[in-house]
């Protein structure tokens, strides 16, 4: 893609570099790819949450019309498992299945219809086993074990000051739940594997991190890295669902076996089964304070359901634990946070990465405390907000800007939406939308606030880096910058920002991008709101190196420079949860205004206002777009989105019954940005993409509580909760604290790190 514009520098709303092919339909996503003599792949998946496999008969499938190949675990040439953190996830179920939807076999055929029909002909003899499908059940000593090493994946303990043993004049205590949310990216999983004559393979795929895919693929294909090349195809959204391996290894295995290109695309129903989800959570939280509102203690017990395989549950629960007390100065903090294995669908990265779940709990508890103290909810937050120099519960000192008070005040200052007449509106302007359910009856407005925070980039000592190569080339029409990066832009506008950086640093207009592939060094994942910092830093560094070389001289020959950007180091958590686990922090305050039909329990959101600490806004239009999209996702978790499970099976794996917000559900979103530059970050940026998701859910719940007076403690809220048919969810008491060797994920204590091929054994007979 080549762009030639004048108004494309840092700080401007530069036009997207990939906008034109996207509006004409020419942009090729992983699901659009085709090749000559291509085969289609289809996956056979387990209908059981837990079962032993006694036999797999692929005979009928292999003989079916159009079928070229059927593969199972018996056909695996090398490593049999993969995983982002721990290689605990089988390429094909190997003697045992651990969740409904787990891949058992894969078929390649001439057409998709033939592949799907043949997949139905694969016969698997299952012996169902007792399954553990509740996160508290998983902690019980008599629970079925998902893996040999036990059902605890990780337990994080944080103790700051005297922990929870402290005198407070006032205590509040609450129990909160969040359900399983799905990323529901519009673009389904899809890619094309093309075998080469020398036994190597090329994969074109929609993903979030090319190099981590390649690392796992190479081990499972039994090939050296150089013989597995991953090139980025267009990605139709991800939000965490494309960080884990999905069809990559399957497609390559089929391609290498059949010696033909193989395309695999998941349908929507399959997509729900084919990627990780957001961890459902249960939180028991207590806040202790003085009567003047100053917090003295926070005591949090957090439990998250990681599902059948580890994915990134270890970092997610670690992240959540560090944020569980909220962006407040609290001298004494105790956090006990556990991620468990169950036979539910695996959970992993989703926008917010543990922060949304804890923000819902701590902001709900703060509102409880404010009510109990008789202090205004925002005033309570202003009294306790962290600032630069604050010491967080992990002992980490907040070194960068922390404009929590500023975001709260800015959010509060956004004008409220005007009152609307109760009667006489168009039918769709009432809660319930096009359903014609009201003419103004029982309408109540409510306003609620929430403050959230999160880290930018990876944490706990992860050695994160991003590489980029910039080449400055002379041309008849002026200098051109060519950027080569393996970074993925799955919609947030990263490439546009990188182009803006190059134009600013090299004072030119035309920027060209080479295709993103594993030919260049890793740029890391597009997640954790990290890419503007990391790949932006890499491009910035490369441009500066070019300028140094060029000096004042004329550009006669191309100059290429490669730069690898590292952020400042972080550390893990010691045995009391102390350390410097995060690179930097970002804060947001959100206000929600809702209108509730109190008799029907239906909601119309009138406005979402988000004030966000952005460091530096690189592209105002792009930044707003990120906040608006993040807000809509938080709104979904508040009102309509829940992966419903019954005995480990997803009951609503379709867009008919997994309800993401439509244009009639998302209101006008007002975004405000506070720009206090982050030191050491390129241009002072912080990440943008996740915070509104973190804070919108509790803001909407707070507004609903204000409107209805009901003590809502679960997200998403259902009409049953709003009309009072369903009482608040109750807990059976705090989940017990497991006995663990330390703060690290348990597989590490068994010597099972990434790249290690210890097979997770099937259960003994």
């Amino acid at each position, binding site marked *: 893609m080549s762009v030639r514009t004048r108004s494309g520098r840092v700080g401007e*709303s530069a*036009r*997207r570099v990939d*906008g*034109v*092919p*996207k*509006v*004409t*339909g*020419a942009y090729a*996503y992983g*699901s*659009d790819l*085709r090749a000559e003599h291509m085969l289609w792949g289809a996956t056979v998946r387990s209908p059981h949450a837990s079962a032993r496999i006694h036999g797999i008969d692929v005979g009928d499938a292999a003989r079916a019309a159009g079928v070229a190949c059927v593969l199972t675990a018996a056909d695996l040439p090398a490593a049999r498992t993969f995983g982002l953190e721990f290689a605990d996830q089988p390429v094909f179920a190997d003697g045992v299945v651990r969740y409904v939807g787990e891949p058992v076999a894969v078929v390649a055929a001439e057409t*998709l*219809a033939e592949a799907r029909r043949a997949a139905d002909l694969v016969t698997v003899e299952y012996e169902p086993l007792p399954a553990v499908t509740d996160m508290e059940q998983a902690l019980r000593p008599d629970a079925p074990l998902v893996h040999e090493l036990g059902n605890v994946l990780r337990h994080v303990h944080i103790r700051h000051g005297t922990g929870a043993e402290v005198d407070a004049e006032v205590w509040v205590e609450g129990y909160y739940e969040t359900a399983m949310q799905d*990323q*529901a*990216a*519009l*673009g*389904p999983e899809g890619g094309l594997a093309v075998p080469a004559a020398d036994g190597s393979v090329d994969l074109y795929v929609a993903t979030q991190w090319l190099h981590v895919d390649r690392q796992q693929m190479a081990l499972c294909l039994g090939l050296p890295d150089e013989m597995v090349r991953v090139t980025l195809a*267009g*990605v*139709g*959204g991800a*939000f965490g669902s494309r960080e884990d391996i999905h069809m990559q290894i399957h497609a390559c295995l089929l391609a290498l076996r059949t010696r033909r290109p193989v395309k695999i*695309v998941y*349908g*929507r*129903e399959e997509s729900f089964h084919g990627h990780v989800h957001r961890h459902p959570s249960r939180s028991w939280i207590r806040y202790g304070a003085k009567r003047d509102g100053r917090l003295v203690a926070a005591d949090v017990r957090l439990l998250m359901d990681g599902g059948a395989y580890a994915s990134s549950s270890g970092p997610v629960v670690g992240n959540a634990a560090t944020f569980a007390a909220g962006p407040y100065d609290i001298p004494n903090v105790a956090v006990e946070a556990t991620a468990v294995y169950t036979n539910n669908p695996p959970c992993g990265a989703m926008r917010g990465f543990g922060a949304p779940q804890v923000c819902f709990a701590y902001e709900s508890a703060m509102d409880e405390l404010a009510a109990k103290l008789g202090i205004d909810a925002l005033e309570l937050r202003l009294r306790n907000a962290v600032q630069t120099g604050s010491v967080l519960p992990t002992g980490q000192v907040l070194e960068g800007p922390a404009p929590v008070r500023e975001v709260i005040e800015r959010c509060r200052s956004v004008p409220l939406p005007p009152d609307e007449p109760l009667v006489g509106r*168009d039918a*769709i*302007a009432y809660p319930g939308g*096009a359903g014609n359910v009201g003419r103004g009856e029982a309408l109540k407005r409510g306003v609620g606030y929430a403050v959230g925070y999160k880290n930018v980039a990876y944490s706990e000592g992860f050695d994160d880096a991003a590489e980029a190569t910039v080449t400055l080339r002379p041309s008849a029409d002026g200098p051109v910058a060519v950027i080569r990066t393996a970074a993925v832009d*799955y*919609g*947030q*506008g990263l490439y546009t920002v990188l182009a803006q950086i190059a134009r600013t640093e090299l004072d030119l207009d035309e920027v060209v991008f080479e295709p993103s592939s594993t030919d260049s060094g890793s740029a890391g994942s597009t997640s954790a709101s990290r890419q503007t910092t990391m790949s932006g830093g890499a491009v910035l560094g490369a441009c500066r190196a070019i300028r140094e070389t060029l000096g004042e001289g004329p550009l006669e020959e191309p100059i290429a420079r490669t730069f690898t950007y590292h952020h400042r180091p972080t550390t893990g958590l010691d045995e009391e949860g102390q350390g410097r686990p995060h690179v930097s922090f970002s804060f947001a305050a959100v206000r929600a205004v809702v209108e509730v039909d109190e008799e029907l329990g239906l909601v119309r959101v009138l406005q979402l206002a988000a004030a966000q600490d952005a460091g530096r806004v690189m592209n105002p*239009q*792009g930044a*707003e*777009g990120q906040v*608006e*999209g*993040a*807000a*809509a*996702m938080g709104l979904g978790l508040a009102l309509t989105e829940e992966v419903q499970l019954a005995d480990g099976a997803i009951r609503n794996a*379709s*867009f*008919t019954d997994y309800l*993401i917000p*439509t*244009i*009639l559900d*998302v209101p*006008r*979103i007002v975004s405000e940005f506070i720009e206090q530059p982050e030191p050491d970050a390129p241009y002072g940026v912080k990440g943008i993409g996740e915070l509104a998701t973190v804070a919108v859910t509790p803001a909407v719940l707070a507004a609903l509580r204000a409107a209805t007076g009901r003590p809502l403690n679960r997200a998403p809220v259902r009409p049953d909760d709003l009309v009072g048919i369903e009482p608040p969810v109750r807990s059976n008491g705090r989940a017990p604290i497991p006995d663990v060797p330390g703060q690290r994920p348990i597989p590490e204590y068994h010597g099972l790190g990434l790249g290690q091929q210890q097979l997770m054994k099937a259960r003994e007979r």
Partner: protein
Amino acid sequence: MTITTTVNGVERTVDVPPATSLLTLLRDELGLTGSKNACEQGECGSCSVWLDGELVCACLVAAVQADGRAVRTVEDLGQPDRLHTVQDAFVATGAVQCGFCTPGFVVAVADLLERDPHPSDETIREALAGNLCRCTGYSKIVAAVHLAAETAA
């Protein structure tokens, strides 16, 4: 089953299995991958096309139902160097992020503006209720519709 249908002004004849959808015919037989398959059940609108001038979800039209009829897809709306007003407005307002929903929206918006050249916010939202977007939160899409309406005027 042999189908003859006029697609973007050109008569095309293809052989497809029975019960194939129009979307599959467009994408896999004719290589017109601009219309997307995101849900396979008419919930998301990313496969929106015109069938004899009416806005429909191509995934819900059986290919045989397009026999002898005219289909128009996003590919017919504009070219990279000569974008349709709606397409240009989407880029200009930042209404495109991952872009997967964009072709369906562009077609649905073009359809709306043909019937109502200056729609209100409520009309826009009701008309686009069948187009899902996961990236943008819809605000800039509404802005794009207004911009396209003003520009075309």
